[in-house]
C-alpha cells in the first residue's frame, strides 16, 4: 500500500500574535480526502494552524504546501477557492440574511467579490439544502441559534466549492440534537464531495470516533500524528493534556478514550 499523497504539508511552520508565539516549528502532513482532527490544550496552536492555512494569519517562518505548491505563491482568492474556513463563532453585529451569508462563499469565484448571479444563488440554495438550512434562507443569521448558524456556515463552505474545509471547534456549545445534526451533515457532505477536513476540537472522544487521522499539538509543535489508534495513547494524551485517560480499543480497532483525571 502506497503512502497517501499529502494534500497539505506544514514545514517548520511558525506564527505569532505580537510577542506571543503560537506555532513553533510545526511539521504535519494532511493526506487528501481524510478527516483530520487537531487536538491540543488551549494555546497549543490549533486554531492558529487553521488560520494560517486559511491565510487569516501570516506565518512568520516555515511554509505550507498545498499540493506541493507553497501557499504564499497562490493568490488569496485562489486559496479561498480551494480552502473554506468555518469559524468557531462568528459574532454577527449587523443583520444578514442566511442566504446572503451563504452567497459570500461564492465571493472568491466572482468578479470583484460580488456574487449574486443566478448560478451563485442556485449553488447557495443547493448547499443550504444539503445542510438542512434551506428553510432559514430568509432569516436573519444573527438571530439564529448557535447550531443553526454553524450549519449555515457549513453550507457556506459547501457553496465555496473548496476541496479543503477548516472547522474550528464546530461542535462546541451545541446541544446534543444540534451537535448530531451538524456532524451528520458534515460527514455526509464530506463523503459525497470527497473533501479533506481539518477539524479543531477539544473533544478527544469525537476525534477518536470520527477522524481518519489525529494530530496532537503541544506548544505549537506536533507531538503525535497518525490514525487515532496510533496517535491516541495513554502516554500521548498525558503529555499533550496533562490528564490521565484510559484508552481501550473497540471492535473496529478505534480507541475509546475515558478521562480519569488530572495527571499526578
Amino acid at each position, binding site marked *: 500500500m502506497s503512502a497517501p499523497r499529502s494534500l497539505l504539508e506544514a514545514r517548520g511552520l511558525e506564527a505569532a*500574535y*505580537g510577542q*506571543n508565539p503560537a506555532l513553533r516549528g510545526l511539521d504535519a502532513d494532511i493526506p487528501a480526502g481524510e478527516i483530520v482532527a487537531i487536538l491540543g490544550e488551549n494555546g497549543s496552536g490549533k486554531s492558529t494552524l487553521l*488560520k494560517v492555512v*486559511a*491565510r*487569516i*494569519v501570516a506565518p512568520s517562518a516555515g511554509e505550507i504546501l498545498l499540493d506541493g505548491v507553497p501557499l504564499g505563491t497562490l*493568490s*488569496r*482568492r*485562489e*486559496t*479561498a*477557492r480551494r*480552502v*473554506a*474556513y468555518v*469559524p468557531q463563532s*462568528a*459574532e*454577527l*453585529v*449587523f*443583520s*444578514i440574511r442566511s442566504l*446572503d*451569508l451563504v452567497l*459570500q*462563499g461564492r*465571493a*472568491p469565484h*466572482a468578479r*470583484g*467579490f*460580488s*456574487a*449574486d448571479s443566478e448560478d451563485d444563488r442556485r449553488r447557495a440554495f443547493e448547499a443550504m439544502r444539503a445542510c438542512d438550512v434551506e428553510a432559514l434562507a430568509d432569516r436573519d443569521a444573527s438571530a439564529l441559534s448557535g447550531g443553526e448558524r454553524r450549519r449555515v456556515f457549513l453550507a457556506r463552505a459547501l457553496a*465555496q466549492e473548496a476541496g479543503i474545509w477548516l472547522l474550528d471547534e464546530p461542535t462546541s456549545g451545541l446541544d446534543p440534537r444540534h451537535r448530531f445534526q451538524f456532524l451528520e451533515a458534515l460527514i455526509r457532505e464530506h463523503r459525497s464531495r470527497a473533501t479533506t477536513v481539518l477539524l479543531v476540537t477539544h473533544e478527544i472522544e469525537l476525534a477518536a470516533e470520527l477522524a481518519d487521522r489525529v494530530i496532537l499539538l503541544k506548544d505549537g509543535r506536533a507531538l503525535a500524528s497518525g490514525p487515532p489508534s496510533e496517535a491516541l495513547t495513554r502516554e500521548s494524551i498525558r503529555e499533550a493534556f496533562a490528564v490521565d485517560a484510559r484508552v481501550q480499543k473497540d471492535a473496529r480497532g478505534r480507541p475509546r478514550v475515558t478521562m480519569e483525571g488530572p495527571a499526578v
Partner: protein
Amino acid sequence: MKGGRPALWVGAGLLLAACVLCGLAVGGVRLSIADLVSGTGPAGQEARLIASLRFPRVLLAALVGGSLALAGASLQALLKNPLADPFLLGTSGGAAAGAALATLAGISPLLSPGAAFAGAAVSSAAVASLARRGGRLDLQRLLLAGLIANAFFSAVLLGVFSLASTEAARTMLFWMMGSLADASPAKLAALLPYAIAGAAVLLLSASRLNLFAVGEENAAALGVHTERSKALVFLASSLLTGAAVAFAGVIGFVGLLVPHAARAVAGNDQRVLLPLSAIVGAALLVAADAASRAAAAPSELPIGAVTAAIGAPLFAWLLLRNP
C-alpha cells in the same frame, strides 16, 4: 438585490430634490417654491437669481453631507462597528488640525483640502496603530484611540488659535464649528476631485466591505487582501473627510447617523447602503443647513451645532441599543 429596487432610489432622489429646493428657498429673503420652480415672471426671475447665489452653498452642503455619510458607512462595515464614524475616530479632528496649520502657515485656502487630507490620513494611521492588538484592530481600543486623537488635535487647534491674529482666530473658530457660509464655485472645484476619488474607491469596495461587515477574518478567509483593503478604505475615507472638513469645518454625527437610517430602510448590503447613505447624507446636510439659516434668520447657527444637537441624543440612543 443589486439595483433591483427602483422605489428606493426614486424615494432617495425625491428626498434630495426636496431638501435642495428648501435649501435654495430659505435664507435672508425667503423664496416661494412655486416661483423658484417656474422661474417665469419678475418674481420667478428674481427667485432664480437669488437661488443661483445660494446654489454653491447648497451644493457644498450636499457634497459635504454625502462625503461624511459615505465615509461613515464604509468605516462601519470595514470595522464591523455600528459606532464607527470619521468624527468619533478622530479623522475629522486630524483634518481640522491639518487645515488650521495650513491656514496659519499662510497656504492658499484652496489647498486646504490637501492639508486636511494629510491631517486626516495621519490621524487615521495613528488611531489604527494605537488600536492594534496582536495583529488586529481591537474595536474598543479603536474608539478610545479616536478619543485620544480628538483630544490631541483639539490641543493643536487651540495652539493654532492662540498663535493666529484675533481676526483670523475668529474666522477659524466659525469654520471649526462647521460653517457652509463661505461656499464658492472655486472652493467647490477644489473639493470635487477629492470627493470623487474617495467616493469612487469606496463604492468600488462595496462587495469587499460586505465581507468585512461579517468580520475581518471572514474577509481574509474569503480571499480578500485585508491589509490592502483596510489601507485603501481608510485612505479614501480620509480623502472624503479631509475635503469636507477643509471647507465646512467639523460636522459631527452625519457619518454616524445617516448609515443607520439607511440601513434600517434598505438592509446592510453595502452595494446599496453606500450610495444610499451618500444621497441621504447629502439631503440631511442640505436640510440641516436650511434649518440653521431659518432658525436664527437673519443670522445663522453653526451647522456643526445643529448636527450635534440632533446627533448626540440619537447617538446616546444607539449606544443604549448596542451595548
